[in-house]
């Protein structure tokens, strides 16, 4: 474990129910979700509910914008290239054919929407990260343990946090160098 630094407290939990209890007690004691960082080997709805309370991820706006842009650009590419070389095809087929361009529009919608979702995911997750933050050098956190880190605390609040973490069953509690969650 890293040495204690005023302002940040790190704890390790071996049990999910203890971690959730710790989160609840910290919130009751006035700690804000944005001050806490939970690291876990898998997504757990209990953690999500405790910290986000049903708030949706903004990634969805990237997805929507990407899909709309993709659809427009797919249809525009197909239409404008046909108009750019206006070859009259027999049987009265129009240059800009809606049914024929549905496939291109659909594929471009999916492709661009997917790319933008990826961009949104990377942006909001802070990926790719050049180096791991110190609290996750612990290999147990991708295996079977949970970490709860509190950042930006005054000495008094750090002491209160440590007390709650210890009382709710954290198996290790310490200060830490830095964290940006």
């Amino acid at each position: 474990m890293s040495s204690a630094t005023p302002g940040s407290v790190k704890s390790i939990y071996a049990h999910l129910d203890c971690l959730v209890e710790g989160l609840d007690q910290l919130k009751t004691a006035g700690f804000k979700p944005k001050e806490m960082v939970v690291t876990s080997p898998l997504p757990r709805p209990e953690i999500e509910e405790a910290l986000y309370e049903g708030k949706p991820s903004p990634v969805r706006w990237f997805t929507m914008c990407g899909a709309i842009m993709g659809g427009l650009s797919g249809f525009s590419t197909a239409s404008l290239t046909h108009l750019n070389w206006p070859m009259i095809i027999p049987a009265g087929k129009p240059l800009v054919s809606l049914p024929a361009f549905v496939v291109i529009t659909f594929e471009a919608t999916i492709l661009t929407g997917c790319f933008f979702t990826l961009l949104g995911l990377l942006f909001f997750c802070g990926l790719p990260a050049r180096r791991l933050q110190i609290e996750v050098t612990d290999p147990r956190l991708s295996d079977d343990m949970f970490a709860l880190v509190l950042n930006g605390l005054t000495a008094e609040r750090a002491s209160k946090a440590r007390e709650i973490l210890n009382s709710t069953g954290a198996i290790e509690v310490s200060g830490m160098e830095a964290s940006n969650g």
Partner: protein
Amino acid sequence: MKGTAYGAVTRDILDTLFKPTSLYFGMIGVCAAFLLFGGYCWFIQLTQGLGVAGYAPPVFWGVYITTFVFWIGIGHAGTLISAILFLFRSKWRTGVYRAAEAMTIFAVMTAGLFPAIHVGRTWNSYWLFPYPNQRELWQNFKSPLMWDVFAVSTYFTVSTIFFYIGLVPDIAAVRDKTSGFIKKVYSSLSLGWRGTDRQWHHYMAAYGFFAAFATPLVLSVHSVVSWDFAMAQTAGWHSTLFPPYFVAGAIFSGCAMVITLLIPLTKLFKLEAYINLFHFENLAKMCLLTGMILTYAYATEHFIAWYSDNPYEWGVFHYRATGNYWWVFWTMVFCNCIAPIPWWFKKYRTNYTWLFVISLFINVGMWFERYNIIPGALSHQFDPNSWVYYVPTWVEMGILLGSFGWFGFWFLLFVKVMPAVAVAEIKEGVRPPLKSDEVAA
């Protein structure tokens, strides 16, 4: 998986990585031999021209297009299992979806080679894609062949993103269990994933969107592939039945290939705790459903060809069943309609030998189905003077064999360097470590 702890899940799955056995090297060797032979055959074609293929005018779509459609079809099960079953919250997908997704990626990679092989002058195959050029020449976006380029490339890109994003947390788990140079490689591949609440929050939202994007692609890609045929005024092809018929066939063959690949994988890596008869039985049921749709489609297209009283249409279907390609047609019927019948009985769909053997029959049958559709129609069109009997040459069959080597090589490489079972998602199905459980005990 009752009683399995998170730590045991990580250990069991990551233990399958690295440390290749002599059997593994043997399998890699077989794939490499097939691949080399296929590469040699392609070299012959590149240097001597398409004359080395058995094309007989007007049959210019033969083994290459047949194999292209076959591999695209194989590539359907992975995204079906990973995306559609994810949206339906189906629990049995968890054990098998990672390997099925990998199969999808490698199958589409294999399929993607064939249009380039088929066109002969492979170095010009970039002409398929729209790019700004000096003469302002663009593709015909009204052509189903152009739709197919978009459909397949979009499917490959979306499936790859979905697959890789799904892998990231598991790559991070591998990173945390390795050291030295290997750790550096996995650190880069994990993109610095830490598993924080913020990352999981956005990850789960994005994963749902990827699944939602991939889901219509499962249905659309093979529909578009079927329009390569159905949009043409070719007797035996020009039918509105083709899209559902092709989609059902693709899922049928894809699920069978998942069974073929996962039974040996499960046995070799001792993963029965995570992939077992529960999963294989569900895959067999999926094959039964889609196999029934396929059999119904075969019957319908033959009935409609006869009932239409169109001599050209009925001529093609009659020829397929009784003409030069009768053995292709009846192999297809046996493998796809008759061989899966034992799976109607639980005893046979919960027996590894029956599962494996029947899945092999389906794989063979589905290749023959595409062969039956393509040269089986082109060689017997409207003008009797153009009737021919197309027979593939050793070069074409060598490239077909090479495609299996290419696919197998990638798949074997994958299962030794990446977790073939999804670690984080398996843990979601495991009871979490709870203090209350320990107190109660």
